[in-house]
């Protein structure tokens, strides 16, 4: 029984590293107000939210690090810092993207709530990336999910959007249901909801495997749904296709990031023993071969993503499957179950952020002009809009993972981690998959450059701002392909997940 005094004290010094979240909350409230006041001025909310994100970012840097708080149910460490930065970067790009998105900028649509929910979702993700208590994890995931349900269906007069949101909400509800059920079981087994306590309990006491396995797998189901890993990927293609492209991009990066953050933290804090002797090597508690299970999941995920992507003709859908595949690659890094893998996951996410958002932006810019997301209609793009086509193909090469692009570095470090852990077979599966992925990525390039050169459809105008954005993204993709030490070092520094003694 904690009595009230120290509770308050705890709360106070916890708030000292809860500032970014608070910033986001205030931004959110502010947005509601401004939305009520300036209905006419469309962009103001966008700029306010941008401001909020930037502010949150600044606060992230200045506030103290590596602390537990809120009765050890929340932590702020290098690990969550990395993910929060990624999430914020994604947000900024998404907001910029939203300014250009035709479907959002339609007449008479009020964008106030859009940004409000964006901020709300961000808040949820921040919590997710820091939560160390199963209940908090559950709440945080629900916070981001519920906002995302709404965002997915934000363009509500469009049928496919509303369909997407329905599917999303039902599937999400189910998997969160599974998750909470699993949590309840785990609570029953270990008598605690705090990851650290759970681990200690598992480390000391002997519990029979089956219920423990079932419960933890049910919890993993919740995460798997966030990172759209097999078999909880089914919602991904439909929702990605249906949702506004901005949101698709957002889901494909940010919420995946949050999902992986919590997954890793769960594994490290909840299921691996705290022995510092081994340093960055994890020793899992409970007699279950998590590494193998995760490797299987990774294999299934990337293979499925790739072989189904071969068949897609709708670019959004294709990218959806490709994002599933990438989740698979990242899972390889998780399956290694040591800081090495964690670091490789971080690296991957940073590179993935650049190339995937970039790809979505390219698709959006073109699709809005030609009113189609069909690959066929991208034929001859190389001549109608050389710049976009060039940038797009750079990003695609990065997604394939060919040097000298960021994508190669990302894959390189994942494979490095995997081989280091002697999971050679997994590495082989990985490279074979990246060969398969070549087919469909190249298919896009083929349509842009090799096909449809003859019929002259006239060029596609692209506004200056967009040109700058995509060029920057492409440039970064190349830059981090040839000079990547800073990213690696940063990931290395952020790789160790804070353990509470």
């Amino acid at each position, binding site marked *: 029984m904690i009595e009230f005094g120290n509770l308050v004290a705890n709360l106070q010094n916890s708030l000292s590293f809860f500032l970014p979240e608070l910033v986001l909350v205030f931004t959110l409230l502010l947005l509601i107000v401004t939305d009520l006041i300036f209905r006419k001025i469309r962009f103001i909310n966008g700029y306010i939210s941008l401001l909020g994100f930037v502010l949150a970012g600044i606060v992230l840097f200045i506030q103290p690090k590596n602390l537990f708080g809120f009765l050890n149910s929340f932590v702020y460490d290098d690990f969550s810092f990395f993910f929060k930065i990624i999430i914020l970067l994604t947000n900024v790009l998404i907001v910029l993207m939203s300014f250009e998105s035709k479907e959002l900028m339609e007449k008479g649509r009020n964008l106030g709530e859009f940004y409000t929910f964006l901020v709300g979702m961000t808040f949820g993700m921040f919590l997710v990336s820091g939560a160390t208590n199963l209940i908090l994890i559950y709440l945080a995931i629900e916070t981001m999910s519920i906002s995302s349900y709404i965002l997915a269906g934000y363009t509500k007069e469009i049928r496919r959007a509303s369909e997407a949101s329905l599917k999303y909400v039902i599937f999400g509800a189910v998997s969160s249901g599974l998750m909470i059920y699993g949590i309840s079981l785990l609570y029953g087994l270990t008598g605690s909801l705090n990851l650290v306590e759970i681990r200690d309990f598992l480390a000391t006491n002997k519990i029979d495997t089956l219920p423990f396995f079932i419960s933890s797998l049910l919890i993993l189901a919740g995460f798997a749904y966030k990172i759209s890993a097999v078999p909880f990927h089914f919602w991904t293609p439909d929702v990605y296709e249906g949702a506004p492209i901005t949101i698709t991009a957002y889901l494909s990066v940010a919420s995946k990031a949050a999902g992986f953050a919590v997954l890793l933290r769960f594994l490290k804090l909840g299921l691996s023993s705290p022995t510092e002797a081994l340093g*960055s*090597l994890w020793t899992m508690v409970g007699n279950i071969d998590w590494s193998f299970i995760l490797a299987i999941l990774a294999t299934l995920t990337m293979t499925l993503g790739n072989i189904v992507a071969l068949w897609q003709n709708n670019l959004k859908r294709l990218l959806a499957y490709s994002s599933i595949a990438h989740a698979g690659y990242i899972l390889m890094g998780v399956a290694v179950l*040591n*800081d*090495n893998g*964690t*670091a490789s996951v971080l690296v991957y996410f940073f590179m993935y952020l650049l190339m995937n958002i970039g790809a979505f932006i390219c698709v959006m810019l073109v699709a809005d002009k030609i009113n189609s997301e069909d690959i066929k209609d991208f034929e001859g793009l190389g001549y109608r809009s050389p710049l976009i086509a060039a940038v797009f193909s750079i990003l695609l*090469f990065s997604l394939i993972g*060919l*040097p*000298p692009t960021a994508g*190669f570095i990302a894959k*390189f*470090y994942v*494979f*490095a981690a995997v*081989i*280091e852990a*002697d999971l*050679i077979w997994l*590495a*082989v599966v990985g*490279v*074979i998959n*990246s*060969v398969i992925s*070549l*087919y469909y990525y*190249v298919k896009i*390039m*083929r349509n842009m*450059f*090799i*096909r449809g*050169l003859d019929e002259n459809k006239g060029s596609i105008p692209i506004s200056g701002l967009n040109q700058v954005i995509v060029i920057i993204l492409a440039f970064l993709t190349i830059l981090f392909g*040839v*000079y*990547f*030490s800073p990213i*690696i*070092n940063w*990931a*290395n520094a952020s*790789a*160790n997940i804070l353990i509470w003694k």
Partner: protein
Amino acid sequence: MQSSLGFPILTWIVFLPIIGMLLVLLVPLGKDERSREVSHIIMRWITVVITFIQLVLAVVIYLNYNKSLPGVNDVSTFQFVERVTWINANFPIIGQIKIEYFLGIDGLSVPMVLLTAIVCFVAVFPSFIIEKGVKGYFAMYLLLDTGMMGVFVALDFFLFYVFWELMLLPMYFLIGIWGGPRKEYAAIKFFIYTLVGSVFMLLVMIGLYYSVGSFSILDMMNPNNYKPDSIFAGMHTTIRYIAFMALFIGFAIKVPSVPFHTWLPDAHVEAPTPISVILAGILLKMGTYGMIRIAFPIFPDAVGYFQSLIAWVGMISIIYGALCALGQHKVGQRDFKKLIAYSSVSHMGYVVLGLASMRPEGISGAIFQMFNHGTITSMLFMIVGVIYDRAHTRGLDEFGGLANKMPVYTGIMMVAFFAAIGLPGLSGFISEAMVFLGAFNTYPYLTIASGLGIILGAAYMLWTLQKVFFGKLPDRWNKPWDPTGKKFPSDDLIAREYVALVPLALIIIYLGIYPNPMLSLMNTSVNYFVEFMKPFVLIGNFLSGM
């Protein structure tokens, strides 16, 4: 040892084309026909100038190269070395990952550098025929140039891999956009085959890094650098054999050796002439170069173990490639270019055979053959290109009697053809003879069998000669190629074709009569290489029970 010259010449020779690419991209495309034509001319000449400077640099390297230093696995005897830390990042567990920007050349790579410079220069002139998307074409062309040159000078495995993959993109587009009817198919096929080969190379590379703790190819060659109980530690372990095979197949796809060769005919048939020239002239060499630079010296034990297998691969490639070339007269589209493509398979087989011999003569011969095949096949493809540009067909059956219509052309062609069938006095003969002399020591029977390749080679070449150049000229070709006389002033060769073909012909004849300049380049390194390999190879042979 720092470059004996004042400036980092290798960096220049590698990245000069990138500068050229940027220049080409900066050239504004005019609105109307006239100004567009002008800008096209500018781009062409930018490329000519850039590749020419590159050629000059290559010659400078050749002149300043010290033939007495072996190189191979000894960094102190590499030349024009440039070595700076490129990436130096920490990573959990693994610790510091250090990647170097490490360039340098020795006797194994100098001929290739020369070859690349030469072929890239001459191949620009056939490119003048390109009318569509000129800017993109030359940009890609120069990017490709950088990639290839980089492969031949990189001594850091990571860097090597980056350059190796860097070529894929331009090559894909060059075949895919400017290619023939089935270009899509050919381009993707090339892409897939090469990628399949290289991804496994990636894994082996990572494994080697863990075992050695450095990406330097030279460090990987030294057994003492291998950490105990690391994955590739020790010698003659199964995992090392597997890794070697992964590398070997990766390179064999590029060579291409039977049975990994099927991408080649398609790629060649579809690619535009200059790209075929580069493909056959340089890209194929990267396969064999990779073997001798990476696969063999890093896994010498495995070489010993698989030596006879490699020799077999070479022999089969020789015979099979020649038979397929001969068969082009009978089946398929009877395509002139396809025939040459298969002849490449056959001729690269000699290289593999020579490498397998593990004898100084054989390996010198192999490298020399790489160079000669580079020049000879480049000529052959340009020769095909010449009639294709005029007649817009490559059917072997559709020609005849060209000797009367185009005597000079026929003369030059004969040099290339006779060089290709190994006529003494032309460079092809010496390299093939050396390969045979070397291989005969190790594999007498395989070598004698490969000898059939000589006869078959003569057969399909003479057959082609007869079909295309002798006999009666079909009536459809009786009128001049280009009645307007604008594109082809004369029925025979035109200026830029002379510029492309004559230098190669001279090189072929010169090296045929006096090969020492080229041989002495590689001589020291080759002997050193063989000596270095010998002990491991012997044990390997013993283990494989041959």
